[in-house]
């Protein structure tokens, strides 16, 4: 039996297919698409191709991500927080604090024995999210993917005093025009975003194991800065983007296996492999 998890983020859609032993058969990350054309179905098709499976062989599809998105090919929609918590604990069974820094939001989750017991979230302010790094790296003329390696060369990181992304951008341009080395500016940026996120997550009382996920976790400079701020080891999965989709797939598996064990019908609905749309 196969189970799929689909995590529709603001920028990227992630699909993971697992079998009944929880082994991952395919994992794909693709663009979500523009506001009203959510191309999650295309990413789903890619994942099916990679696993060499037809759509009707997937016993259960769980979708997560943007709450307002209607996913016609999902059997069920489960909140991001539940899916992330499940995904992270399946990879790191001793996790207590999971931090996810996505393209447009940041979440902190307290997990005890694989269960989400508390959380904090910022989805209102661009600072402390991937957007912060995107906006400023754009102003600096560098690619987001290069930020991490550039920052490693820094010996004297700058202090960004602005809390707001827009004012920080101005500050950074100032530093650049004064001749400050690029690597010191980038290290300062990582320091700023790490500080912002950790301050938020401290409300949950941070204790090991600490896991960092989300697109921003691919940035080695940010990972280091988060480690410094927390003062603890920070674990990062090999595929930091996939914990939501993985968790969604596992939750689908659990739903089905539980129903089968009890001899109950599997809670499904009619599904079609089509574009997702926004509820308004």
């Amino acid at each position, binding site marked *: 039996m196969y189970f799929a998890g689909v995590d529709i983020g603001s920028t990227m859609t992630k699909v993971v297919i697992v079998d009944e032993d929880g082994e991952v058969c395919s994992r794909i990350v693709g663009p979500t698409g523009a506001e009203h054309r959510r191309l999650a179905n295309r990413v789903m098709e890619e994942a099916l191709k990679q696993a060499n499976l037809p759509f009707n062989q997937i016993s259960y599809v769980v979708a997560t991500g943007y709450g307002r998105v209607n996913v016609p090919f999902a059997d069920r929609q489960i909140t991001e927080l539940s899916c992330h918590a499940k995904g992270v604990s399946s990879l790191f069974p001793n996790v207590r604090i999971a931090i996810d820094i996505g393209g447009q939001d940041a979440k902190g989750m307290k997990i005890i024995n694989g269960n989400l017991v508390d959380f904090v979230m910022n989805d209102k302010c661009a600072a402390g999210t991937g957007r912060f790094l995107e*906006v400023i790296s754009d102003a600096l003329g560098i690619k987001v993917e290069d930020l991490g390696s550039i920052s490693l060369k820094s010996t004297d990181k700058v202090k960004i005093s602005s809390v707001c992304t827009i004012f920080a951008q101005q500050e950074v341009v100032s530093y650049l025009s004064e001749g400050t080395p690029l690597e010191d500016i980038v290290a300062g940026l990582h320091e700023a975003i790490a500080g912002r996120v950790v301050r938020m997550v401290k409300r949950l009382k941070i204790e090991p194991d600490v896991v960092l996920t989300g697109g921003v976790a691919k940035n080695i400079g940010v990972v280091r800065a988060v480690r410094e701020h927390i003062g603890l080891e920070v674990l990062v999965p090999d595929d930091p983007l996939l914990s939501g989709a993985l968790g969604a797939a596992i939750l689908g598996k659990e739903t089905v296996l539980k129903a089968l064990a009890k001899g109950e019908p599997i809670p499904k609905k009619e599904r079609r492999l089509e574009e997702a749309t926004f509820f308004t």
Partner: protein
Amino acid sequence: MGIDIGSATSKGVIAKDGDLVAHHLLPSGTNYKMAAEKLREELLSKASLSQEEIACTIATGRGANNVLFAEQQVADIICCARGISKIFPSVRTVIDVEDQSSQVIRIGEEGRVVNFTTSEKCAAGSGRFLQVIANVLRIDLKDIGPLSLKSENPVTFTTGCAVFGETEVISRIAEGNSKEDILAGVHKALAEKICALAERLGLEEEYVISGGGGLDIGLIRAIEKKLDIQLLVPDYPQLVTALGAAIIAAEKCPPKEG
């Protein structure tokens, strides 16, 4: 002389007996010291005065410590309050909208500051929000006010962040919303943040708007509507704080002989 070095614009005023003799403003740029020097040059030239004839200079604003020729620095809230009380003595509530922050100041007689509150350092609560959206729409800042008044159906923004707001504007354009409706929505969103500040502090008439925001008729109307008040508008809303600094300068330093 009063010099107000702001994050976006530097403003200067030469006053005699509390009346404006000369004024000038220029973009602050990244070098505040240079901006201050240039400002002084322009002011002296406009007033046909030499530096020796200036009895005293007070500096204020974010970049005040870059005004090397000033005798003293005074906080901008205090200068703003003094400036307003000279222009409109009956005002008791000042709504000051600047590039990087907004303030609401309660003043007493003689422009004494009774209380004040300021927005968090967030672009969406200050004039910068308007600049960001004007850039996206490719409209001059001076035109956004009048354009916004033409709207009959202001867009309601779902986000309170200027960065996410910029993205939302792009979506709204793609959805076919008019620039007028979008601008009206932006003014409304900013006005709401500012009005929340004002309500926290408590309102007392009469009311005035100052700072760069006072140049934007769309913002003025949006605030008036939200709070159900009338806003007085100075002739030069951006110069109020510099004027206040100049008035304080006259008090701090006795006039020179000769």
